[in-house]
Structure formats: C-alpha cells, structure tokens
C-alpha cells in the first residue's frame, strides 16, 4: 500500500503547512483567531473551494473542466435577469442550476461521445458561457435581492460561527468524499483515470461516467454563482473571472494527480484551507495583492512539480536498487492514460 502511504504523507505535509500558517497568523495579529476573521477567511475563497470538490473528481478521471468560472458568471447574470424580470427566487434558482447541468452536459457530450480533449472543449465553453452571460445581462449589475437571499450569503448558521456558504462546502465535501472513497462509483472514477481502456474492458461505462462528472461540475459551478451573487448582493456577468486558476491550484495542491487516477477529497479540503489561510495571513501582513497572486501561481507550479519530482526520484531509486524484473514502463503507460 505504498500508494496510500504516499498520499497520506502528502496530506500530513499539507496539514503541517496549515498549522504553521495558523501559528504565524496568531503571532502576527490578535484578530486572527476571532469569529469575524473566520468569516473573512471563508469569504475570500468559498466559491472556489466549492468548485474544487467536483473538479477533483473530474481530474481524477483524467479530464479537466476549465469552463467553471464562466459558468459562475452565466449563473449570476441569469439569476439577476430572472429576478429583474419578476421571477421568484424559488423558481429562478432551480432554473439557474438546471442551466448549469445543461452546460456540463454540453462539455460532457463533446468529451465523452465525440472523444474531444476536455482541455480544448472547456476552453471553448469558457468563452461561450462568458459570452452568454454578457448577452443576458450586459454590463449592468442587478441588486435589490430580498434580505433572506443576501442573508444566506452573509449570515451564519444560527448558534455557530459557520457561514452558510461554508456549510455548503462542508456538506458537499462529505458527500463527494464518501462517494469517491467508499462507493463503487468512486472506484470506477479511479479506474477510469488510471486506465480508461482497461476500465472499459471491465464493463465500466466510461463515457457515461465522464458525462455525469461534467454535469456535476456544471451544476456545482452554477451553485457557486448563486452563492457569489448572494454574498455580494449583486448579479454581474463578469462574476467569477479568473477563478479557474485557483480551483485547479487547490485540486493539485491537494495531491490530485494532473494525469488522473490519484487524489483524495480530504487532501483537497486541506489545500483549500491552506490557500485561504495563506491569503489571510498575507493580508494581515499587508502584502500587496499582486504578490498574493504570485504566491498562488507559484503554489500551482510547485504542487505539480513536487509530486512529479518525487515520483521520478522514486523510480530512479527503484532502478538502482531493484534487481527484479520491472514492468515500470508499463506502469507509466497504464498510469498516464490521459488523452
């Protein structure tokens, strides 16, 4: 079980980094460990963190969805448009989520039925969804949402310091964590990511599975758009711009292999917390926003480079020390079943 061991070590490393950051934060500022700051903490990254959860499943299945940030914008502008047209939110929100599912379905059909690379497909829909958002709402912003709705964005779960959006994140992390790690669906996701061909020969309906993952990603991105609209009490077509980079950063920092087949939901949760706390600490230390962006970019590169280097080093060590017959080339071929 060297695989589980390696991932466990990665998560332990993340946890250690997180503890160090919290310790730095508390020593930097007295307000760090207050409920108010906790609200700030979640505010910075909550939509991104929510979207990172389904993205983890998509990347483990050896695909990627770069269109999520535009789906946030499409969801926000559609919600604003419907509300401005007098559609009640009880109808508008489910409609927005349905559009998210449709967008995901489009990605999924293009990838799984037509066999197109998801990198290209979702770059296309990245532009497409943003364009639709701008057509629907134009440059204007819609506000005057009802208090109950904005309270969902600002408020906390009664009796606790947990903001409502954070509760969504926790619930989704629990559900997807269980699905990925304890059910046959999760097993099929891993098998598809490690060796799609062997999975297909083993009766896994690979195309259908990928389609479902893209739909999930679309729905959750639309949900993130609704949450963002509630938190800012304003619907805008440019909502979510630039979020995809951070979503992917969290997933990869969480130990998910960019080539598919490896990763855990606990790792992604830890990575989201780490990134949120890092941003918070940098802000408390009065580091400029530009520098924060550099930090996130560097983290993305480092979180891809370190596991790859570690893997290479391990292979090199195996090659030097192992005298036994080695199917390592075949392992590489089996693991890297990306398009």
């Amino acid at each position, binding site marked *: *079980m*060297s*695989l589980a061991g390696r991932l466990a070590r990665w998560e332990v490393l993340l946890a250690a980094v997180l503890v160090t950051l919290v310790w730095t934060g508390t020593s930097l500022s007295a307000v760090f460990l207050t409920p108010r700051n906790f609200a700030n903490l979640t505010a910075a990254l909550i939509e991104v963190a929510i979207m990172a959860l389904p993205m983890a499943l998509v990347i483990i299945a050896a695909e990627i969805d770069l269109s999520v940030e535009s789906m946030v914008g499409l969801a926000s502008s559609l919600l604003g448009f419907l509300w401005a047209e007098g559609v009640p939110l009880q109808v508008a929100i489910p409609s927005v989520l349905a559009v998210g599912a449709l967008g995901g379905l489009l990605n999924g059909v293009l990838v799984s039925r037509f066999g197109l690379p998801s990198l290209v497909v979702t770059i296309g829909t990245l532009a497409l969804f943003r364009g639709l958002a701008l057509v629907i709402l134009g440059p204007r912003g819609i506000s005057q949402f009802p208090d109950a709705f904005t309270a969902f964005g600002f408020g906390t779960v009664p009796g606790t310091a947990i903001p409502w959006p954070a509760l969504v994140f926790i619930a989704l992390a629990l559900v997807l964590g269980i699905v990925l790690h*304890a*059910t*046959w*669906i*999760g*097993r*099929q996701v*891993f*098998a598809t990511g*490690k*060796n799609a*061909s*062997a*999975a*297909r*020969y*083993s*009766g*896994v*309906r690979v195309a259908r599975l990928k389609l479902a993952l893209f739909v999930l990603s679309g729905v959750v991105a639309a949900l993130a758009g609704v949450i963002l609209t509630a938190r800012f009490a304003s619907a805008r077509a440019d909502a979510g711009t630039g979020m995809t980079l951070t979503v992917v950063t969290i997933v990869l920092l969480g130990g998910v292999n960019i080539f598919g*087949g490896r990763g855990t939901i606990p790792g992604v949760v830890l990575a989201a917390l780490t990134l949120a706390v890092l941003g918070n600490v940098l802000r408390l230390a009065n580091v400029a926003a530009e520098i924060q962006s550099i930090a996130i970019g560097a983290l993305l590169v480092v979180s891809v480079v370190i596991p790859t280097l570690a893997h290479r080093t391990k292979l090199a060590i195996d090659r030097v020390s192992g005298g036994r*017959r080695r*199917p*390592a080339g*075949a*392992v590489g*071929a*089996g*693991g890297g079943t990306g398009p």
Partner: protein
Amino acid sequence: MTAVPDVPSAAGPGPRPARLVLEGVSKAFGATRALIDVSLELQAGEIHGLVGENGAGKSTLVKILAGVHPPDQGTITLDGQPAAVHGPAHARALGIAVVHQEPRLFPDLTVAENVFMGHAPTGRLGSVDWRTMRRATERRLRELDVPLDPGSLVRGLSMADQQLIEIVKALTLDARVLVLDEPTASLSTHEVERLFAIVRRMRDRGVAVLFVSHRLDEVFALCDRATVFRDGRHVTTALTADLTTADLIRHMVGRAVERSPRAEHPIGQPILEVAGLSRAGAFEDISFVVRGGEVVGLAGLVGAGRTEVARVLFGIDRPHAGEIRLDGRPVTFDSPAAAMRAGIAYVPEDRHQDGLVLDFPIATNVSLPILTRLFRLFVRPSVERRLAEGYGEQLRVRMRDVDQLVASLSGGNQQKVVLAKWLATRPRVLILDEPTRGIDIGAKVEVHRIISELTASGLGIVLISSDLPEVLAMSDRILVLHEGRLAAEISRAEATEERVMFAATGAARVAEGPAAGAAGSPR
C-alpha cells in the same frame, strides 16, 4: 515454378556475389529470445523469401536491418565491409531500404515530396529545388512504369500506390538491399502482379531483395531462394525450385507436437452461436458454434481477424452484418458491460493496456467488473479481499497478499489475475485472446490446467492463440481464419499443425491436393 525473367539478370547464372551477410545474429527482449544465432546471406540480384510462423523472428530481423533495434550479438557485412546499422537514417545511408507492411508516408505532401523526404535536392541558398525533385521523381516513376503524377497528394491514393511510392523512395536512395515486409497484405491480385514486376526489375539491376511474407504461393512465384525461421532460429535455406509447399510448412512447424492428455468430458448444448458475422475491413461471413464444455480454437496469422471477431462478440465494436445468439436467443451488445451481463467474458490480448489496472491492488482488479453486482453502493473491502483470495488460491496466484499492486507481479501471475477477474463474473462463454503470450513455461502449463478445469465445469471457451501447439493441444475444434474469412474448421482428431498452417496461409485454396497429402503422410 520460379518465374524466369525475360531480361537476363546482371550477374547471369551461377553463384552471385554476396551482398548482405548476417552471421550469428542474436536478439533478446527481456526474457524473450527473438533471434538466436541466425545467419543469412543475401546475394546481389536475387529475391530471397523469408517465411515462418508468428513469432519466428521475421519482424525482429527486419527491424535489425532497418536500424530500429541493434543486434545483441553477431555481425552484419555489406558488400564485404562490416556494417553496424546505427539507426533508420544510417540504414538508408548504407543503402538498405525497408518497405514496411503499412506504408509510412506523409498524406498531406505530394508524391515527389514523399519520395525525397529527408534528402531533397537543394538549389542556391539551400532552398529546395522543386523542379529537379519533380523531374527526378517523374523519371523514376516512368522507369518503374508507375502511372502516378509526382505532384498529386498522397492522401487518397490506394494502399498499392502508396506501397509503390515506398519502393520508388527506396530507388532514389540507390538501395543495395531492399527489404519488403509483408508488402502484399493489403493489395489485390492485380496490384500484387504489378508489384512483383517491379521487384523483379530491381532484382535484375543487381539489388538484393528480402521478401518477407506469410503467403507461400507468392514466395514460390517470386523468390529465387527461401529461408525458413522457426522460434527465432534459422531452419533452412534452399532454392525455391527444390521446395514444395508441404516442405516449407513442415520446416515452419517442425516441432514434435506435445499433446497434453486432456480429461474427457461431455460436451453440452450450444451456448454461443454466430451466423454470418461481418465487420467491414476486419472480417466477413464468420459462422460457428460454441458448446458448453468445449474449447474452440481460433487460429490464423496476425491480421487474420481473430481479435476483431472477439471484439465484436464482447461489444467493443459493432458488427455490420450477421447474428449472435446466446442460448438460442439473438443478442446485440452496445458495450462490454452489456456483453458481460449476458455472460460473455473476454481476456484481452494486451494485458497491460486493456486487461488490468496495473496501479490497483489485486483485490480491486478482481472486483472491478462486478462492483455493481457485489455492492449496492458502498464498497466493502473485506468482501473484495475474500473474493480475490478465493480465486487467488484456485488459480494459484503467487502473491504476498491481495493488497499487493498488480504491477509488482510477474507476467504469468498478472495473467492469472486477469483470469480471476473474468471468472468472478461467472461467464457462460470465456474468450481468451493470446492467454499465454509472454509468460513463462510454468505459468503456461498452469493456464492450460485452468482452461481444462473450466471446461469440465461446463464453460464454453474460445481460444485465440498464435501458439499452434497450444491451439492443437487445448482445442476440441479449430477454426482457421485467413484474411478475415473462415478458411477451415478442423476437428481435434483431424488437426495437425500442417493442416492448420495450410489453411492459415491460404495455401489450401491454391493447393488443395498437397494439403491433404501433407496432413496424411507425416506421423
């Protein structure tokens, strides 16, 4: 039978000078010894046939001459000079031109550009001299009597024309040695004739031609001498005039046939019935029946369509015509999942690519096809482990425990894990595609034992194998495919290696008489 050219050959009759000499060449890939101490002499101005069963070492030899693989041992001499081939480009520089089975051309470039790829004539300032290129190509096409326009794109040209362009390319290199690897596999009779005329003309100019083919009638029609390889060794070289088809096949097969005694068991009702099954470009009009407790061998040469038939039966590809019946009821499969549910299991040819998730433990590999059957939603590792342990014991998989990664097992044990995973689906029909390829003798014997045990339990088995002794030893009946068609159906009692090879090489059509004679006489 040798066609004597009307143009006298350059060297005239009598011994011709040796052009290319291989001495003591050996090549191993890991534990597999592909070529063992092989010697071969190609004379200037001869066409030399090279034949042998699948895995006899023919393609390895071609790859060594093409510079793709360096030999482990042995020497290559070209016109008396020792020549080590360092790579494909170096092979070309030495004057060794290799025409592969599949033409490797650039479809979006013109005929002339393809012919001069890598050595285009240049004008001043190093720019490509298009006119010279076009003229030179035109001249050579005319020399070979090939009616092609040098300016037309390769895309859209027939396989035969592409094959000819490869040969023209070889000509521009002033080839001293021309190697043709299965050049007629995709050609029609007429196109084959045209190709042969050109090859003969090249021979007459003093080029040494090595003609690798499965089609024995072609070897007799074209070649001056023929060499037979078997199991990586040189068996014989003789003038084709002194050989018969039966001789050639006997040399190719050669081994003493070991038939492992098989427990007699009753053969039951038909389970799988296939009628008129066709898939365009792969196979045509295939019909057969598999009964319970029966092993049906599917023999044939590489590319005969055996795996393609299996892929259709397992729902990976769709048939274009024909019917599949399971227990008398017609079925259609739109996916492997559907075929699996109906009771068909397929152990694929490529274990690493299609058979296993190498990075998964043994237990999860075994449970993968039946996850949805075993568990409603939540996976219980203890159930998976017990299942894998049960099959591990039955199939005698050598492992530390079922949590071990499959990648760390030996080839034979990996194959047993593939078998375990398919047995766990409790199939009615099990299709085995090259189940013992690349595994050691001990594991092979065990796989054969498992096959025998499975038939005793009433399973119907389709055994695809290029290992002829294996097919003969294991099968109750043998179906022989030749170029996508059913060439023969031979019962266990009547099956000999010679008969199977006759059918597989298409020789049965040409020489029905000798085939029967050869099958009857040696014993």
